[in-house]
């Protein structure tokens, strides 16, 4: 696998800030030699802690110091320092291309295609079950996360045809198999299946297997790589299906993971956030607003409590970004489906700070409301993609926004259908009973229209859950007897059960702490 820059020397596009011939793929600075030697040794020794330190810390520091805008030395150049180990070099290249995607611009189709090939090789090795390493969960999550990200990035890249040079278009044709959607989906699916992760999780529920309890690591001399990659691939599949607009299938892919419990998905904060973000978004698009609200609330509370511990980590920016996006999605959910008791106080305060104005607008359902929904949706939604390869004949356009525009349009369409419901809410909150005739008069519509509106409220406030049952999400309700509407007051009740559970666990923790205290 030749280092890509070898070919570029005659016809490279505008080079980065360094001097034009600054990058020599074969030059290996001493610090990199040491890095490679040590990382290789730690991987051979299965010293997960040290691997993690080097992966999170060492690699970032060297990138910042020596490779701000340039790629790392080529794999061939560092091969002597790791015995030319094939698998290690696949991992090294994985880091190489990830670094390139983050720091190098422009990134050519050739680079992207090579990264694709590397992932194929790496996953193939893992799928053959011959890998005998233990890698930190952070790295394994980042692998899957990056895999999906590069796929998404490539789809965006190749959909922007308008300003591409002849050379770039030729490259696209040459590498037309790179990042093809079938391949991407099938690799992730293969990882899920080969790792037998769904069976493992099932058996774990019955106490027949240890997986979550060991954080996914294998303490019996085996490897955690296939199992954990399989696990994270379920989240990867959820993410891709969201990018394609297939929310139902996305949620099905995630089904083996129980979000009511801690699990391997909560160990790495990036995976925790990505899971809940996409789960919540998919539920939102499927009109399961209460479910989305519930999960967003939990994760936003979590981030509020624990983000300070991640300030130094390279994921910090991503964490903050997703945090903001989820507040936007929460604002949308609560505007479409008001709930009284689901939001934690602290989250509610943050939400009001950020979006009080917008939420007031959105609940008015006038023109300004649509603008607010549009803005929040566009800010918070995933970067949808068009999975089919481009047709490279004239005229060349940019169609990278098509997928997003469709999802936005359909979302706003749903918002429009709920337009009349806010009027209903404000009127019905004032009465305990009222005749259809009277209410129609107040709302200045005819009776038939009013009956339609009332049934629309019922329809929109009762969603179909994943088991096919009808679930009410109405914050207040009514029923009609012939011509009279009876409004039902829902009194907010204190949920004592939850309170007691929390206190029991808290006290248990405290007792545990106290028992550790030794008196001299």
């Amino acid at each position: 696998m030749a280092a890509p820059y070898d070919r570029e020397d005659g016809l490279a596009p505008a080079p980065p800030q360094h001097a034009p011939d600054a990058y020599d793929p074969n030059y290996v600075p001493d610090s990199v030699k040491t890095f490679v030697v040590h990382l290789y040794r730690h991987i051979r020794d299965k010293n997960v802690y040290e691997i993690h330190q080097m992966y999170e810390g060492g690699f970032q520091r060297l990138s910042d110091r020596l490779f701000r805008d340039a790629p790392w030395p080529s794999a061939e150049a560092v091969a002597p320092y790791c015995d030319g180990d094939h698998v290690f070099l696949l991992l090294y290249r994985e880091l190489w291309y990830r670094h390139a995607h983050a720091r190098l611009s422009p990134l050519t189709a050739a680079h992207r295609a090579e990264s694709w090939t590397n992932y194929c090789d790496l996953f193939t090795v893992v799928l053959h079950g011959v890998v005998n390493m233990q890698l930190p969960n952070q790295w394994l999550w980042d692998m899957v996360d990056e895999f999906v990200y590069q796929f998404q990035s490539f789809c965006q890249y190749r959909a922007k045809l308008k300003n591409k040079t002849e050379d770039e278009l030729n490259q696209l044709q040459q590498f037309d198999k790179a990042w093809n959607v079938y391949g991407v989906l099938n690799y992730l699916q293969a990882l899920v299946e080969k790792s037998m992760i769904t069976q493992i999780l099932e058996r774990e529920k019955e106490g027949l297997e240890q997986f979550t309890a060991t954080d996914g690591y294998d303490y019996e001399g085996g490897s955690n790589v296939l199992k954990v990659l399989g696990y994270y691939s379920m989240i990867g599949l959820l993410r891709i299906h969201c990018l394609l607009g297939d929310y139902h299938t996305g949620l099905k892919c995630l089904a083996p993971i129980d979000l009511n419990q801690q699990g391997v998905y909560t160990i790495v904060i990036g995976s925790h956030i990505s899971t809940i973000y996409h789960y919540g978004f998919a539920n939102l698009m499927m009109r399961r607003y209460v479910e989305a609200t519930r999960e967003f609330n939990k994760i936003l509370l979590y981030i509020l409590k624990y983000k300070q511990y991640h300030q130094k980590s390279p994921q910090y920016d991503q964490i903050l970004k997703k945090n903001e996006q989820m507040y936007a999605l929460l604002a949308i959910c609560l505007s479409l489906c008001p709930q009284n008791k689901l939001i934690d106080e602290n989250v509610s305060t943050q939400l009001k700070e950020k979006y009080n104005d917008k939420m007031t607008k959105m609940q008015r359902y006038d023109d300004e409301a649509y603008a607010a929904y549009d803005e929040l949706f566009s800010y918070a939604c995933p970067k949808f993609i068009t999975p089919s390869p481009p047709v490279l004949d004239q005229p060349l356009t940019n169609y990278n926004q098509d997928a997003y525009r469709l999802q936005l349009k359909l979302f706003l369409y749903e918002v429009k259908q709920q337009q009349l419901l806010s009027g209903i809410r404000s009127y019905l909150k004032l009465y305990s009973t009222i005749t259809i005739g009277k209410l129609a008069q107040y709302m200045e519509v005819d009776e038939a229209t009013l009956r339609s509106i009332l049934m629309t409220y019922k329809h929109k406030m009762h969603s179909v859950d994943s088991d096919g049952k009808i679930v009410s999400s109405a914050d207040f309700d009514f029923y009609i007897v012939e011509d009279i509407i009876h409004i039902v007051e829902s009194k907010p009740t204190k949920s004592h059960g939850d309170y007691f559970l929390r206190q029991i666990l808290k006290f248990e923790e405290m007792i545990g702490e106290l028992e550790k205290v030794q008196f001299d």
Partner: protein
Amino acid sequence: MATEQAAENYTVEDLVALNPYNPDILNDLEKFVNEQVSSQTYNLDANLSLLRLYQFEPERMSIQIVARILIKALMAMPAPDFSLCLFLIPEHVQMEEQFKTLIVLSHYLETARFRQFWDEAAKNRHILEVVPGFEQAIQTYAIHLLSLTYQKVPRPVLAEAINIEGLALDKFLEYHAANSGWVIEKGGQSQVIVLPRNEFNHPELKKNTADSVPFEHVTRIFPVLS
């Protein structure tokens, strides 16, 4: 909701479960759509898989098949299947006359405008009659909405929602009185139909879930209790 009559066509369902991201199953999935139509069954997963494959290879999309999938999805209301399908169909394809009509029909159903729906459906009989069972499915949905909303519904309201009148409606009411627990009474201006009690039109039947604790949460304190 039409999920109860799942086809025994395990071959296709196996394909979808085991090997969904495979261009070779496209033809099987298309055949399966036609089977669902003719045998009055329904499978959302298979249809979504097909729409996904069409997304991956737009040249192979069949407008006819997509139309059938959409009509089947409409029949699955109140489930949001119709919009789930639309999410997967490119905008320019949604501009086809057939699809614009179906979207309008879906809009009427989503906003409970049954008179407008039946009028529009009558004008587009040629599109809809390819799928047997369409009328009954929509009538089931209409009754579902009425059951969420009314304890007692006036006859004209019911008639408009299910598009049945006169003698045919009498027969319909007789049937449901005998089989679904409907009771026909004399109301203020017309007959009223008393619909069966459920937690949505009789809020006192609603289990107070606010104070009940889901089992998974209780499991959290098992280590403490033991």
